[in-house]
Every structure is written in structure tokens, then in C-alpha cells.
């Protein structure tokens, strides 16, 4: 008989090892899936995980892309991880990301064609506010009416998508765009353009913000009283209440910070790599960031590494589509499988396996 025995404290070694096991298991299951699709499995895995970084033909293009894709993922996942630690489930980051982009772009488009060094900082503030406001809806409903924040934040993704479609065809539409939907391209508007800080590195302001967010989250979670309260709320909600931690304040804080960071990610995306508000501007970063947060064990450094790995699957996936004709959906499935394998191996962190009879 195999049975599980609860550990008193989560194992430190398995905390680090299980994500690696999950990645390996995903590669194996993914390889089987690729073989079933009639593609060479080993070659597919190599193209996804190795070629974007080391292949002489592609690396010069894909290495910068790695940071471009990892930036928003890390930024959003850091915010989400704080809430997840406290047991506050914001799963509508995709909507907050959209609203951040809309708010950020709106400031730039309103100012067009003015030229000012203050414009970009104003867009940053506006983008963060957009995401923050969108996250405040579930936060207030949760604190005032005890409404489930999971469902509300998710419903608001669909609402945000409708708003995006509306502004792309109306309010923010490019007046010189010959009637096509979509805003002006901010890449051609120097004051608003989120240009690379170091040329050809992929390092734009969003990536820098992501690194700053990692450091701030690390300091907060390990050194600051607020980080302690967050962990206390997640691990021992009763103790948190007895010690006088305000649930209301914590819910507003966690949803607010994750919303603001998701909004920032959207704003940096629209003013940089994407360049314009379009109907299908959002690409699922808000949902993939949930995988990143769990893959990184809700730990800032882990999230940094997980974000880079997940960005690699995006770029490698695109490469595999090009080289092997692998369907785009198989990459999406690959990412989903990673989350499930990760959750499946989680048991080794909190439980010990005992083989033999019960004690």
C-alpha cells in the first residue's frame, strides 16, 4: 500500500526539484503528443527549447524576443503570486492587462502629436491606474458584498474584451487609418514609443519594470510586515484575524497590486512591441501568467526563471510552427499540461510517500 503522510513543513528540496520534474514530464508527454501529430518528437522539443537560444540562424532574432515575451509574463505573475499566497484569486489579469493598454494608449493618443518627455511617464501612470481600477471592481465587490472574486474578475475579462473591440473601432481609432479598425501606431510616435533601452536586446521599459517588480516583491515578501501578513492570511487565516490583520485591506492590496502590474504590462506592450490598440490586441498573457506564477512556486526568483522558460515555449513554439508545421494549439496545450503536471507533482512538497502498511 502506498499512502501519503503530511509533512510538518514543506520540503525545501522538493520545492525546487518538482518544477524541474514537471518540465521533464511535460516534455515527455508533449513529445508523445507531437509524435501522435506525426511530427518528430525529439526534433520538436529541441526546436522549442534549444534552437531559440543557441541555433546560429535564429538565436540573434529570438534571444531579444525572449525578454520581450518574458517581461509582461513576469510582471503579471509577480502581482498574481502575492494574491495567490494570501488565497485571493485574481484570475482576470487578462482584463486588467487590456484596460491598462487602453488607458495607457488613450493618454498618448489624446496628446498626439505633442512632444514631451512627460508623456511616457504619464502613460505609465495611466496604464497602471487602468489595471488597478479594473481590479478594484472585484476587490470592492468582495469586501463590501462578499462576492466571489474568482468569478467576477473572470467575467470582467469578457467585458474588457468588448470594451477593447469598441474603442479599437470607435474612440481610439486612427482617424487617418482609411476606416480600418485599430489605433495609430505608437511606434511611430517618438514621445510615446516604449523603445528598447539597449538596442537589439529586447530590453524595453516593461522588462526593466519586471525586474524591479521581482526585487520589490522579494523584499516585501521576506522583509516587510505586509509580506508577512500576506503569508499569514494564506497559511493561517484564523491566526491572521486574531492578530488583527484586516482582510479588507489585504484583499484591496492584493487585487490592487496585481491589477496595477497587469495594467502596466498591457501599457508597455501597446506602446512597444505591439504598437497599437487592435481588436485582438490581447494574446492570453494574463492567463499564461497564472502558469508562470505556479511554475515559479509563487516565489519572485522562481517566477523570474519560470517567466523566461514560458517565454521560451512561446518563441520555440512559433519556431516549431514555422519549421515543422506544428499547430499553434499544440503549444497552448503544452503550456496547460505543464501547469497540470506541476500541480500533480506538488504533493511531494507537502506530503511524504510511505510504502507499506499504515503506522
Amino acid at each position: 500500500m502506498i499512502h501519503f503522510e503530511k509533512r510538518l513543513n514543506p520540503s525545501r528540496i522538493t520545492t525546487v526539484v518538482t518544477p524541474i520534474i514537471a518540465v521533464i514530464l511535460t516534455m515527455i508527454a508533449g513529445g508523445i503528443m507531437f509524435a501522435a501529430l506525426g511530427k518528430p518528437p525529439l526534433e520538436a522539443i529541441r526546436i522549442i527549447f534549444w534552437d531559440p537560444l543557441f541555433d546560429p540562424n535564429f538565436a540573434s532574432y529570438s534571444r531579444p524576443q525572449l525578454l520581450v515575451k518574458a517581461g509582461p509574463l513576469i510582471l503579471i505573475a509577480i502581482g498574481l503570486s502575492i494574491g495567490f499566497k494570501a488565497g485571493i484569486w485574481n484570475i482576470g489579469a487578462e482584463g486588467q492587462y487590456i484596460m491598462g493598454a487602453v488607458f495607457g494608449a488613450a493618454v498618448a493618443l489624446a496628446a498626439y502629436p505633442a512632444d514631451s518627455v512627460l508623456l511616457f511617464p504619464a502613460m505609465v501612470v495611466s496604464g497602471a491606474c487602468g489595471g488597478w481600477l479594473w481590479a478594484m471592481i472585484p476587490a470592492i465587490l468582495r469586501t463590501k458584498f462578499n462576492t466571489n472574486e474568482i468569478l467576477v474578475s473572470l467575467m470582467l475579462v469578457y467585458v474588457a474584451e468588448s470594451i477593447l473591440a469598441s474603442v479599437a473601432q470607435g474612440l481610439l481609432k486612427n482617424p487617418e487609418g482609411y476606416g480600418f479598425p485599430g489605433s495609430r501606431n505608437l511606434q511611430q510616435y517618438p514621445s510615446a514609443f516604449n523603445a528598447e533601452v539597449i538596442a537589439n536586446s529586447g530590453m524595453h521599459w516593461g522588462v526593466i519594470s519586471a525586474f524591479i517588480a521581482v526585487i520589490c516583491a522579494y523584499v516585501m515578501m521576506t522583509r516587510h510586515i505586509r509580506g508577512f501578513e500576506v503569508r499569514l492570511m494564506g497559511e493561517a487565516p484564523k491566526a491572521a484575524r486574531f492578530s488583527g490583520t484586516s482582510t479588507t485591506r489585504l484583499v484591496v492590496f492584493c487585487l490592487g497590486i496585481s491589477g496595477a502590474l497587469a495594467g502596466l504590462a498591457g501599457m508597455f506592450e501597446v506602446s512597444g512591441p505591439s504598437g497599437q490598440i487592435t481588436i485582438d490586441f490581447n494574446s492570453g498573457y494574463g492567463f499564461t501568467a497564472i502558469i508562470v506564477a505556479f511554475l515559479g512556486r509563487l516565489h519572485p526568483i522562481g517566477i523570474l526563471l519560470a517567466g523566461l522558460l514560458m517565454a521560451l515555449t512561446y518563441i520555440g513554439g512559433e519556431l516549431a510552427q514555422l519549421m515543422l508545421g506544428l499547430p499553434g494549439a499544440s503549444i497552448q496545450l503544452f503550456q496547460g499540461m505543464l501547469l497540470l503536471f506541476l500541480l500533480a507533482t506538488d504533493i511531494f512538497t507537502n506530503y511524504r510517500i510511505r510504502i507499506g502498511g499504515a503506522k
Partner: protein
Amino acid sequence: MDFLGINPVLLIASLMVSATPILLAAIGETVVEKSGVLNLGVEGMMIVGAVVGFITAVNTENPAIGFVTAAIAGALLSTIFATLVLHLKSNQVATGLGLTLVGLGISALLGKPYEGIKSPTLQSLDIPILADIPIFGRMLFSHDAMVYVSILIVGLVWYTLKYTRAGLVLRAVGENHDAAHALGYKVIRIRFLAIMFGGACSGLGGAYISLVRVPQWTEGMTAGAGWIALAIVVFASWKPWRTLIGAYLFGGITVLQLNLQAAGVAIPVEYLSMSPFLITIAVLVIISARGNQGAPASLGRPFHASN
């Protein structure tokens, strides 16, 4: 503006059709949550049901087989969730989300070659005598079989939960799993079966979208119906007949906004299409402001036998 273009008989008839997928998913999830498990993978199971049902219906040219395989596919997918949550004790919220992501991936992969094909659809079933009643006959009694099957499932779930021993045990497990375990009930097995029932219902709901409501396959066609089903479970305070009311109310709103779009009302399309979600949020707020009465006490809590 032409409100006369909206025919109340047709409105109610199409309301029942548009509510059926959500009703099926919601009644399945009610059973899952009554057993104390929160499965957020409804959307993923629905879309897998939609694609599998569509593929088998097209290949066998028989929509009934499509529905059966869709239910099996939904139940199979839900066993992944059940194994992870019950045996490997993973976090229910995260696992449910993972299931949705995986389901969306699988469906997009499987459905690619079937885009743009029309599926065989269910014939509408005129119930003898009743269907001949003026107005009401056309409104209520000449739908396809699945509309009645969904209502029948609601009735069966209500009866089972309320009047049978199996239902009582299921509710006991959902209210207090430790006590149920101490009494010798197999908590894990009961929850596993409940989750599979929920998966099968979600699969049926998804297939209803791809085989009857639209009858076509497009990627991501469930478009949030699974999440709305989850909200309806809360709206219904975990009571079977109230899920029927909730789903039909919601179906009514959906049909009305589509009719308003078609009638060319001076409200932009985007605002109309977001209205079902806004109204769902509003309803959730009203329900939760009164306190979530009826929520199973062990909902979402992990169960580990040795403690």
C-alpha cells in the same frame, strides 16, 4: 427602432435553446459542488465536449452519438481533475484553471480540420397533443430532445439529492468530509464519481452548443458559457430547480440582446454583447450580499484521510 420585430413566442422558444448548454453545465457543477469540490474547469470540459461531439456527429452523421461521446469525453477529462485534486491533493482553484487551459488547447487542436463544416443537428420533437396547444405548444413543447433531457436531468438531480440515500451521503460528504469519513463513507470515491457526473454534463452542454445552437465548430466557441454556469450555481444557492430559473433568466438576457442587435437598436453591439456578463456580476452581488446561503460547508477544502 423596431421592437415589433421581436416575437415573444419565438423569444421564449429560443431562450430555452440558448439556456440549455448553461443549464446542463450548471446542474453538473451543482452536484460536484454539493460533494464539496469546486471544479473551475467547466469551460474546458464544455469545449472538449463541443469538439468531440461535433467530430463524432459529423463522421457518424448521427447527432445522438455525438452527444454520447461528448458526455464520455467530458467525463474522461474530468478524471484528470479528480485524480489531481482527490488523490494528489492539488489546489482546486489552480487545477480547475489548468483543466480549462488544457481543454481549450485540446479542442483547438482536434477541431482545426473541422472548421467551416455544418453538422447534422437534432430534429425538433413535437410532443403529441401538447405541441398542438396554440401559442404554448410552439413555445414550450416543440423543441429538440436535449432541451427536455436537460430538464429531466435537473429533476433527477433534485430527486436524488433530496430523497435518496445516495443523495444524502453525497451531501454529507460535501458538508463535513471528516464526519462522513468517520462514518465509513468513501469520501474520495464519492467525490470522484460526482466530478465525473459534472464532466459528463458539461460535455453534453458543450455538444449542445456545437450541434444545435450554432451547429458549426469554431475555436473557443463556448465563449465563457462555462464560467457563467459556475456563476449560476452560486445564483441558485446550490439548489437544482433554481439553476433552471437562473439558466433560463440568463438565456433570456442573451436572446434579448441578440434580438436587440438584430433589431438595430441604437446601442453599440459591444455594449450589448458584454451585458450578459455585467448582469451576471450584478446578480452575483445581490445573491452574495444576502450571504451565500446553501454553500456546502466543505466546498473547496482539501480532504486527507489520516488527519
